[in-house]
């Protein structure tokens, strides 16, 4: 239903709950995934407490049941539930829906001049299935054996055998939840791909699409091809857990490594699902903040495509230590190292965009710069692990934890701290506070580095991932002070996020009313009022005359931006092409 706004008013339920409007669905995803982000953060705090102060009672741990804490002290079985669920929530229910669920939904039609998604009803189902999956996953904490205990990667046979993991019900819930989530993601991604291909405004050619849309489009392609593999794997795992099949049971001819192959064949594209949209949105914001066209637009597009393509050829680097064929390992090493090339292109092009710009440091721009500098560290630390010999001491230690947090927190989350205030006016018609935003950025940037940078060092020292108590190892004892330091920084980092939460919630109601184009951007979405009305431009369609990055163009006159929809005397109207109909 894409009824234009002037049609009969819809009930609250149709309008905000079972909505088919892509913007409302995006906002629904936003609230749900921010909830899961908070939850994942809470779990992380408990992990940090345990690692920093093993054996000390968790403050406030008294409210947790005896099966999780004993005398306030986190139990080992609860600790592995924590690491498992922190990873699962953050990857599948926080970052992925925040980037893809929220911004693919919200931005694709708005930036391309569509009235809605190609399949609005499927879009609604995609959200509700994702929510259902999240609820099933969350319910794992409330079943008798507690949450899943095999790490977010669910390595079989640990995950397949309840007698070995100790969690009977929730392991199955994990599989079911992932099957549903994959279905939801595929539905969403089919929608995004179709919308990008077919529902563009006249004049919005492929190479006039903003990089955010390019990134989201490529991400959707990755998702559509990768998630079904995870779904298949989760189904095999579920059957192993419930009806006694033997896929991952070496005793009956199954293969333990098969799970890892299937999981990482999905998992590595998934890594790019989690970072490409962030890169795309950061590109938009950096061009806006620098008041300059993006440096090397075409190579940015091809870098995205290159990363996505190479992403299919590198999954084995997660399995270097799994006893894989060393020749295969060499192949994976080379393809992994090659990913550094398109990533380097992107970083240097962002810098090229800022070079000789006229930089405006609004909160989105600050966070975008934070993204570039932090993603660089994350990307560079990846090279250590891509070089297989160096990976040997570093694999499955805190070094990898540091690396992935530099990419996912320093990368994806900083991009979100940029994107949320940037498109907040478009969503809610109000601005988020710049002052709180700047304080939040500075403090987050400092505490974030204090938290995650030392993890590289304790990882080099050999601290294994997911261990409950590092102090029982002689070789880890000397670096325990650093663990304490990390924990304090992590608590501060978590506390600072309440600034963001406050800013977000407060601005919903009391933020400054947003002008139509608060960032003086060229994008199509800013030609609409804030918040964008139901049906977007319906029944009209905007005409597009140029690419999205014409900042400081000599044609713009005394302004330094040139909206895509602005018709200059020299511009000709694009010819709309009707959608093909009928059979062929």
């Amino acid at each position, binding site marked *: 239903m894409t009824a234009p706004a002037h049609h009969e008013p819809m009930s609250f339920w149709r309008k905000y709950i079972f909505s088919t409007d892509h913007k409302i669905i995006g906002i629904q995803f936003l609230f749900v995934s921010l909830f899961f982000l908070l939850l994942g953060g809470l779990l992380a705090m408990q992990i940090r407490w345990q690692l920093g102060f093993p054996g000390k009672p968790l403050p406030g741990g008294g409210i947790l049941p005896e099966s999780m804490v004993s005398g306030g002290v986190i139990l*080992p079985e609860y600790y*592995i539930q924590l*690491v498992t669920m922190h990873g699962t929530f953050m990857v599948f229910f926080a970052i992925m829906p925040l980037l893809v669920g929220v911004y693919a939904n919200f931005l694709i039609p708005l930036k391309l001049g569509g009235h809605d998604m190609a399949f609005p009803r499927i879009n609604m189902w995609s959200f509700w299935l994702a929510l259902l999956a999240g609820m099933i996953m969350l319910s794992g904490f409330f079943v008798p054996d507690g949450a899943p*205990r095999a*790490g977010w990667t669910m*390595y079989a*046979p*640990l995950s397949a055998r309840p007698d*070995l993991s100790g969690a009977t019900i929730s392991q199955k819930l994990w599989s079911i939840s992932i099957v549903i989530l994959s279905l939801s993601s595929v539905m969403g991604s089919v929608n995004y791909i179709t919308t990008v291909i077919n529902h563009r405004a006249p004049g919005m050619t492929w190479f006039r699409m903003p990089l955010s849309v390019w990134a989201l489009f490529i991400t959707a392609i990755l998702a559509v091809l990768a998630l079904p593999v995870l779904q298949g794997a989760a189904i095999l795992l579920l059957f192993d857990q419930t009806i006694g099949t033997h896929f991952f049971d*070496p*005793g009956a001819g*199954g293969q*333990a490594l098969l799970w890892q192959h299937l999981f990482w064949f999905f998992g590595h594209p998934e890594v790019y699902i989690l970072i490409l949209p962030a890169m795309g949105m950061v590109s938009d914001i950096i061009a806006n903040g620098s008041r*300059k*066209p993006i*440096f090397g*637009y075409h*190579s940015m597009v091809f870098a995205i495509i290159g990363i996505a393509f190479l992403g299919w050829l590198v999954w084995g680097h997660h399995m270097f*230590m799994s*006893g894989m064929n*060393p020749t295969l390992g060499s192949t994976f090493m*080379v393809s992994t*190292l090659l990913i*550094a090339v398109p990533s*380097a*292109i992107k970083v*240097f*092009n962002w*810098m090229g965009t800022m070079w*000789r*710009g*006229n*930089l*405006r440091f609004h909160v989105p721009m600050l966070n975008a710069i934070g993204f*570039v*500098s932090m993603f*660089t560290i994350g990307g*560079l630390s990846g090279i250590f692990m891509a*070089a*297989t*010999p*160096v990976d*040997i001491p570093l*694999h499955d230690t805190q070094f990898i934890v540091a690396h992935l947090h530099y990419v996912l927190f320093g990368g994806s989350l900083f991009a979100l701290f940029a994107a949320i205030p940037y498109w907040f006016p478009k969503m809610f018609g109000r601005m988020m506070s710049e002052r709180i935003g700047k304080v939040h950025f500075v403090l987050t940037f400092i505490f974030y580095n204090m938290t995650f940078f030392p993890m590289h060092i304790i990882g*080099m*020292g*050999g601290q*294994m*991932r*997911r*261990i*409950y*108590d590092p102090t*029982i*190892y*002689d*070789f880890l004892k*000397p670096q325990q002070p650093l663990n304490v330091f990390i924990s304090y920084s992590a608590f501060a980092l978590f506390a600072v996020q309440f600034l963001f939460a406050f800013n977000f919630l407060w601005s919903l109601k009391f933020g400054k009313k947003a002008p139509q184009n608060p960032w003086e951007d060229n994008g199509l979405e800013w030609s609409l009022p804030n918040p964008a009305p139901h049906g977007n431009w319906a029944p009209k369609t905007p005409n597009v005359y140029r690419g999205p990055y014409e*900042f400081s*163009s000599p044609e713009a006159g005394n302004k330094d931006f040139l909206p895509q929809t602005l018709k200059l005397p020299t511009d000709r109207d694009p010819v709309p092409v009707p959608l093909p109909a009928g059979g062929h």
Partner: protein
Amino acid sequence: MRWWLPDAGSTFAGPIDALFLAILIITGIALVVVEVGLVTFVIKYRARPGRKAFYTHGSTRAEVIWTAIPAVTMVALGLISNHYWVLIKDKKSIPPNAYHLGVHAKQFEWQVTYPGPDEKLGTSDDFTVRNQLHVIVNQPTAVELTAEDVIHSFFVPEWRLKQDAVPGMHIMAWFQPTKTGEYEIGCAELCGMGHYKMRARVFVHTPEDYKAWIAQQAAGGTE
């Protein structure tokens, strides 16, 4: 406090640490270039009244340069790494004079099988010791890793050695300790509730000490 990799304890440590240092230098240069560049741009090109950004869509030459440099560096790095990778992980690289041991991992312990005085595995004088790995200094040693239940990972930080033990697979790993002393094995793959305490001691002996230990075990401690 330790700020670096653990002390070197095997022949692998030399090349791996050198490679680590090399990558640290390469990435360090890249990091400094990016971060200093960012800070410079932030200061130099901040918006001021009357300024206007330089209107450009990019420069092919610059892009070719910053595509080529990482590409060449990465390929070179791949070639160098591959040499040591094969040396460490390829079955064919295990020295012919290697001393063979069996390591069987199960929740949550390491069972080390020794060949006994005849120095051959699979004979009747083999014996198994829980959570103690005794090896000879400067002697190439190959362990056959097996797992009982779930995936474990054999990790001795000082030797720069890590190898998963996968149920249903027989994986060979080899090393050559260079220093006598006591080390620890940790399990580097989440293997269940007791993952964190799946710890074993490693004793690197001189050949004489080792012989004595074997004889003592074979005499009294055989299971």
